[in-house]
């Protein structure tokens, strides 16, 4: 479906497209340059074909699968690839895919400023944003139009604000969690204006007068809601996700405490938004700030338990797990640590762990 969509965008609109590896990148610049971003979260499932064995099985499956996918020619419909420096594995992929995977199209590595916020980090970030714009200018043959960037920032602000409203009231949507996340994640490859239209339609389905959804409300923090069967298993067990901090979804919704100046330098506005984004181990080393935010999300959401969910061998997420476990244990909140494969289905044992966790939390609630 994505491949056909990308091809149609090229044929009908002459729009170029870029495959984007997880997680954070300034999508506004791509939109302003009339470039379609198509995110590559694996994809889930076992990598197949002769390209499957290029990385060891103990490397993050998102990267392992992405290498097999790109080397197998499955991403050839796009014009270029963007590799945010999310972790050493994604950084390594940027080299491997070119050196050994036969990827010959243009690539760009977007470097995140690491460490605490300071003037030099902001300066570095703005230089990276400008470098990305220049690279896209070469790709499209058009320089960046500053006014187009301002419009793109406003568009993405509208997307985030709508997503935030939908996510905050999700208990009143007549949708299963799988249906909700499938809708939200279409933004990973749809043209942003189309995605905003869909989000507004979704918001229109909110039944604010209806009673909230029945079941055990849980919060999830982790990387990406895959396998989606996890959502089905929670549903079957009588639970639902009331708040999420998945890097692919909830953690990328930016609700700034103060609105950035959208009439001034748009790169400054992007930098402001960057530092207003929720804490993420792929961008920051501040574990304390992340756990504070998670506890705050937990308290305001009414969740009765938290699931720390990550694909196996996800280093940035794994580093934070002990701190998160400690913080929630001190709060007396039930926590389930769940490592899953990047597959399309859940193992029976993982389903049992999820069901048992829901039973445990449900029993506490009843008591």
């Amino acid at each position, binding site marked *: 479906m994505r491949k056909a969509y990308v091809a149609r965008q090229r044929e009908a609109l002459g729009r170029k497209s870029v495959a984007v590896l997880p997680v954070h990148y300034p999508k506004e610049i791509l939109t302003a340059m009339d470039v379609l971003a198509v995110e590559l979260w694996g994809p889930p499932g076992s990598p197949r074909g002769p390209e499957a064995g290029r990385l060891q099985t103990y490397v993050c499956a998102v990267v392992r699968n992405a290498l097999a996918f790109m080397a197998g020619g499955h991403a050839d419909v796009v014009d270029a690839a963007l590799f945010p420096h999310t972790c050493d594995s994604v950084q390594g992929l940027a080299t491997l895919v070119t050196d050994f995977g036969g990827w010959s199209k243009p690539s760009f590595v977007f470097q995140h400023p690491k460490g605490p916020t300071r003037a030099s980090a902001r300066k570095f970030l703005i230089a990276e944003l400008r470098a990305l714009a220049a690279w896209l200018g070469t790709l499209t043959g058009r320089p960046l139009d500053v006014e187009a960037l301002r419009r793109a920032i406003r568009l993405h602000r509208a997307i985030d604000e709508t997503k935030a409203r939908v996510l905050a009231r999700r208990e009143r949507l007549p949708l299963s969690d799988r249906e909700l996340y499938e809708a939200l994640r279409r933004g990973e490859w749809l043209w942003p204006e189309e995605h905003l239209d869909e989000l507004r339609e979704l918001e229109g389905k909110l039944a604010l007068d209806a009673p909230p959804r029945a079941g055990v409300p849980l919060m999830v923090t982790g990387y990406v809601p895959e396998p989606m069967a996890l959502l089905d298993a929670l549903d079957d067990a009588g639970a639902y996700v009331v708040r999420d901090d998945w890097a692919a979804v909830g953690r990328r919704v930016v609700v700034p405490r103060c609105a950035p100046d959208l009439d001034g330098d748009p790169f400054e506005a992007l930098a402001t938004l960057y530092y207003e984004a929720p804490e993420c181990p792929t961008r920051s080393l501040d574990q304390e700030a992340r756990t504070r935010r998670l506890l705050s999300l937990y308290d305001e959401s009414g969740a009765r338990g938290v699931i720390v969910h990550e694909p196996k061998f996800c280093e940035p997420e794994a580093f934070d797990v002990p701190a998160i476990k400690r913080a929630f244990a001190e709060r007396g909140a*039930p926590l389930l640590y769940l490592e899953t494969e990047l597959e399309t289905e859940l*193992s*029976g*044992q993982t389903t*049992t*762990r999820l069901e*048992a966790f829901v*039973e*445990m939390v449900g*029993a506490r609630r009843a008591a």
Partner: protein
Amino acid sequence: MANEPVAIGVDVGSTTCKVVVIDGDGAILDHRVEPTHPRIEQQTTRLIGELSATLGRALPVGATGYGRQRVFGATRVLTEITCHARGAFCRVGRAAVLVDMGGQDTKIIRVGDDGAVGDFAMNDKCAAGTGRFLEVILGRLQVPFDEVWLHVSRADHGIAVSSTCTVFAESEVISLVAEGQELDGILRGLHESLAKRVASLAGALPPDASVVMSGGVALNAAMVRALSSALRREVRVLPEPQLVGALGAALSVR
């Protein structure tokens, strides 16, 4: 009411299928244990039917175990974690740390003073540390289950088995046999190695926590001794440890 059958519990494990009939006090009045059949629906329907025919009436059925969703007509379906906790609490009547070593996985369950699950940990990465692991190795060494304790108790020390994977551990044991190491010492080392893994899964236990054990592996006295040593406290085996999950399932519909 004592001696009056009130509920049936079914625990479809990866190795064995257990069915119990309990009275109002949680006493097991009757039970069946069979190797789990691939056609779980047919097997459990037959076993429930046999017990119901003996009783002369149908009773509510609680189902648990990995095949719990395949028990037709179950009044309630719960995971084995919740059911083992309920069964164990019925037996001991107070808070405890429960080690359930089954065929497919090992679970550490903290049972609260109300019988509810406080927390749990589960090894679900591979068969190492499970009944299946022991079965494979004992089969390779041609040691019948009921002779394990005899061998282990004769060994004055264990020969370390370091592999954490069933396949690699099997190879390592074969190498130790080929080197001429004593079978008794290998078996003791194997149990000690398993017990260390379970202790690692349990993490730091409160000093006053009492530890009880359920599941088919609890019938292996060598494993119980090794686990007591690894956890540095007495491990009490629950009566009829194999039936604790089925008991909990029955209690859930009592």
